[in-house]
């Protein structure tokens, strides 16, 4: 589904990604961990197409296509979803309206007719239940005045609405209390299928108690320096990153 080879990216003169290699197949869950400033969020942004970053080398294949030739919105319509670490506010635009436009753009790309108002309302009710999102929130402006937890739930709600092939969740767990964390993580798990994949970027292993990863990668200074299974996350939680980083330096 996703094949990243030797990906380099920089912002201004500063190189942040320095040769990422990563392969994600359908049905898999990958976790990306690593200390602050290692390039986790940059990787997510570059895959989504954020123009703040310049890709200087490497290639990314997504569903058999060269991802880097696609615009941000084309990537989205082809099923790539980014859950934002800091969801953005759009004053005056209701969540319901925003998602209606998004859902219909996705349908248009698939050659489907736009949803009728009734169909759309039904879809919204069904999907907001997955993350126990208060239905009143969909009548409010996008992310405006949402609490931290509501914003993150809202990201997963949007994921549910758009039904992506590949979801990249950037620090979806940050700033969540334990109940919100459970709800968000359960939501993600319920959306998991054989034909889609999830990449979870996280600081803490506690999220991985709910979302069980097939692979755990450690990102450090713009490279994946180690890949393991779920037990790696537990070890990192206990011992920190130093042992890995030291090994890496010796290399």
């Amino acid at each position, binding site marked *: 589904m996703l094949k990243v080879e030797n990906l380099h990216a920089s912002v201004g003169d500063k190189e942040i990604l320095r040769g990422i290699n990563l392969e994600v197949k359908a049905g898999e869950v990958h976790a990306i961990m690593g200390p602050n400033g290692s390039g986790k969020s940059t990787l997510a942004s570059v895959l989504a*197409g954020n123009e703040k970053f310049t890709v200087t080398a490497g290639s990314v294949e997504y569903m058999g296509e060269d991802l880097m030739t696609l615009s941000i919105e084309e990537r989205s319509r082809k099923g790539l979803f980014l859950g934002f670490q800091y969801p953005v506010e759009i004053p*005056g635009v209701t969540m319901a309206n*925003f998602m209606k*436009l998004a859902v219909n753009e996705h349908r248009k790309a698939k050659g489907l007719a736009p949803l009728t108002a009734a169909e759309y309302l039904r879809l919204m009710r069904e999907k907001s239940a997955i993350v126990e999102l208060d239905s009143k929130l969909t009548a409010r402006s996008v992310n405006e005045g949402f609490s931290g937890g509501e914003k993150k739930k809202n990201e997963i709600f949007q994921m549910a609405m758009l039904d992506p092939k590949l979801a990249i969740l950037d620090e979806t767990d940050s700033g969540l209390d334990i109940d919100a964390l459970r709800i968000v993580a359960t939501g993600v798990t319920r959306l998991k299928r054989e034909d889609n994949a999830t990449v979870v970027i996280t600081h803490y292993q506690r999220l991985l108690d709910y979302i069980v990863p097939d692979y755990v990668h450690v990102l450090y200074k713009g490279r994946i320096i180690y890949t393991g299974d779920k037990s790696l996350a537990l070890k990192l939680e206990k011992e920190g990153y130093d042992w890995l980083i030291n090994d890496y330096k010796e290399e």
Partner: protein
Amino acid sequence: MENETKNIINELEGSDYKYGFVTDIETDVIPKGLSEDVIRLISAKKQEPEWMLERRLKAYRHWLTLKHPNWAHLDIPEIDFQDVIYYAAPKQKPKLNSMDEVDPELKRTFDKLGIPLEEQMALAGVAVDAVMDSVSVKTTFRETLREKGIIFCSMSEAIREYPELIQKYLGSVVPYTDNFYAALNAAVFSDGSFCYIPKGVRCPMELSTYFRINAEGTGQFERTLIVADEGSYVSYLEGCTAPQRDENQLHAAVVEIVVERDADVKYSTVQNWYPGDKQGRGGVYNFVTKRGLCREGGHLSWTQVETGSAITWKYPSCVLLGDNSSGEFYSVALTNNYQQADTGTKMIHIGRNTRSRIVSKGISAGRSQNAYRGLVRVAKGAEGARNYSQCDSLLIGDKCGAHTFPVIESHNPTAVLEHEATTSKISEEQLFYCNQRGLSTEDAVGLIVGGYAREVIQQLPMEFAVEAQKLLSLSLEGSVG
């Protein structure tokens, strides 16, 4: 991305030839320039009574003593008032036989704006008798109004048919001495609308010039007078969201509204005149004076969505004369490319316990300049006056300008006046967020701008609101990315 409106205008201008239309030098055009003789001629051609001519001449003589105003934050090229034609009989547009003959590009814009087919036909110049239902709709409309005693006709007709009302009210809110353009308009106004709602009558439908018979070609010096008698209500719509082609570069309209005791008037405008090309050439200059006078307990609400014209100079105002009267002003002014707008309102509190509310949303893109200018004045006797003003500016790109000139004059210590202002930009993060959810950048800008302007847009009558929303997106096409 090309400027849509410009394209359509160009296409339209070219299409005169395509349809074999040749502009005859009509016999009913008087020579360029302005003099007492020209005014006598205008009055004679319109078969006006003597008193109307006298009024015009008085205004003209006063106008001669005035200088062109230059206090606005506008760069106005010198206008040669002797190079303007002040009277031309309604221009005959080339009549088309069916919608199939209408330029596909224009049709596409109509569809984008969601304008009903019948209205599209009228706007595109399809012969009215080809529009099956149009005549009957208008007739039904007129009959309903007549039953209620509502008068809705052209200003020329009103001068002939209702001289008492016109003599009483015309110029009572905006006298010819008010300003340079008000004087000019009073001297040479071509036509316009007159509307009278009798005591206690609630006008059952929105009045729009589209439904006024013989509404075509009201010309560049339009004069509108609305009189809402005691306890009546009317909602009046001016303008149209479709791109209007106009050969007249100079527009100086006057709108007067009389709100009698406990009456309620809602006046909505969507203005989308030709803004000029991308370099700012050839757009309309729009110098408008709009004012309403509220007597005791009267209420007047102005809502405007301004996206057109090269230069806009316009301050719909409320004189809150009667106790407990109230005024509102909701405005979205969008400028792109080289457009300039200096617009806002005046709220003059004279009566006791008068209230006013101002919500102004400026949107600047391209190299345009957008100014809000407002005056809230509380007179000495206006005990307990209240005003709330909110002036927001949204910038798109880094070559445009937004300016606010709010003036508050309070002569009464009991007045409570609040003012809030914000300036914001459409952020890269907002666009990225929308793009990531599958929206194109243009749709995203439209959505964000629509959200920003929502508080004003929702004041508009329903169908108008939908069109206005789309118009905002359309006017911004190509301004980002």
